[in-house]
């Protein structure tokens, strides 16, 4: 096969046109014979298969360079460009994303070639050989491709390594493990409830009737006549959650504006609210 490829490749150069390999790569729908590509042109009917067989344009390019003695420089750019544009049509029903990556590669090759064909005088000496970057990428990819193959060969669980499976005796009754609780956890849980009750509920605010400013006035007038009021007494359960939230926001706002004060006489005692 390799010999044939070399011959084909040589023919390619002579004639400057696409040649098809002789040996079949795969059967499509039971009949169509698909050949591995000889250049970046892929016959449209084989596109899907090629896209599956290669991990991307770098992979395909490596294959072409290795197996087909593909020449990155001597590409019939015009043909390839034309043919790649045809893919865009075909790819509309296929894996367009994948095809795009092959198109980008074709564009890179075309650019490399065009830059190489420019007269030397216009090229600065310190400018990098446009092929160097591509070669670097190909080498880097090849290293990883090999590494992946090595990893695939490593003995691994499920396939090559079998673990032992030993149980406790059937008579064994597991000891009842009491759940451990940390005092800190308890405090955090409490803090969490308070925080969430606030954070969670403002999502449910309905844009109705209950405005914060209005509620602030109500609270203030109530405090003025009553002196101390217990924090929880300021809430009317009947108003539902949105009402509670508005009251809460109103209290926060009043605290922020230093209109009221919250006092807690004992560490875990109830919070008393009074007007300043």
């Amino acid at each position: 096969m390799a010999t044939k490829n070399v011959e084909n490749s040589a023919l390619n150069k002579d004639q400057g046109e696409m040649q098809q390999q002789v040996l079949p790569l795969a059967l499509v729908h039971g009949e169509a014979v698909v050949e591995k590509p000889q250049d970046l042109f892929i016959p449209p009917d084989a596109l899907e298969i090629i896209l599956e067989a290669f991990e991307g344009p770098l992979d395909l390019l490596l294959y072409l360079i290795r197996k087909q003695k593909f020449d990155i420089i001597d590409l019939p750019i015009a043909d390839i460009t034309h043919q790649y544009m045809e893919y865009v049509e075909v790819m509309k029903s296929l894996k367009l994303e994948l095809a795009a990556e092959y198109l980008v590669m074709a564009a890179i090759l075309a650019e490399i070639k065009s830059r190489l064909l420019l007269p030397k005088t216009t090229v600065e000496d310190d400018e990098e050989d446009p092929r160097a970057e591509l070669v670097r990428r190909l080498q880097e990819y090849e290293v990883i491709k090999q590494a992946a193959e090595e990893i695939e060969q490593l003995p691994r669980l499920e396939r090559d390594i079998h673990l032992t499976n030993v149980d406790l005796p059937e008579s064994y009754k597991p000891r009842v493990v009491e759940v451990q609780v940390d005092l800190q956890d308890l405090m955090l849980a409490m803090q969490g409830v308070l925080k969430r009750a606030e954070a969670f509920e403002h999502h449910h605010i309905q844009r109705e009737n209950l405005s914060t400013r209005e509620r602030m006035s109500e609270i203030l007038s109530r405090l003025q006549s009553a002196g101390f009021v217990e924090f929880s007494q300021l809430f009317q359960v009947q108003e539902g959650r949105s009402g509670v939230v508005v009251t809460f926001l109103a209290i926060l706002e009043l605290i922020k504006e230093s209109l009221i004060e919250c006092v807690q006489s004992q560490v875990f005692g109830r919070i008393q609210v009074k007007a300043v």
Partner: protein
Amino acid sequence: MSKNKQLKNLIESMLFVADSPLSIKAIQTTLEDDLALSKKQLQEILSELKQDYADRGIHLVEVASGFRFQAANEHADQIALLWKEKAPRYSRAMLETLALIAYRQPITRGEIEDIRGVSVSSYIIKTLQERNWVKVVGHKEVPGRPALLATTDEFLDYFSLKSLAELPELMPVSEINLNIEQVEEQLETAEA
């Protein structure tokens, strides 16, 4: 290695790797393409293996469906320690309910639900009562006379507290909260 030793090793590794007990029949069937093993041959191998492991940390035992290796009884207690790290944890719902009872006692289940914004399952209350951390201290004089829950002395003992006053202090409400501006912003959006 002798052929017999090899065969014994193979049976041994099969028994170790299988995820359920292996009967003599099952071993014969698994190997039939490679080896024809008589029942007697297998019985001999199994009894040898049983002997090999007689004074080790695991034993080969025969149960209803076949042979299996299992940990020796005498180590079971200590082996169980392997899972001590994975001791069950209380759910957030459980911890929050306990926290509300501790910090806001006496409190009714309905009040806990109001504050948490979700219903509290009977299971949670029952678990806390079974652990003797929570008890009913009375009934609230409102329709339905719901039970008032409070923590017990066992609860204090568990956390090495002399009294409820020693519970960790909660951050002042103004600090938990928060980001007043952000809340306001959202409120304004909601009002708009």
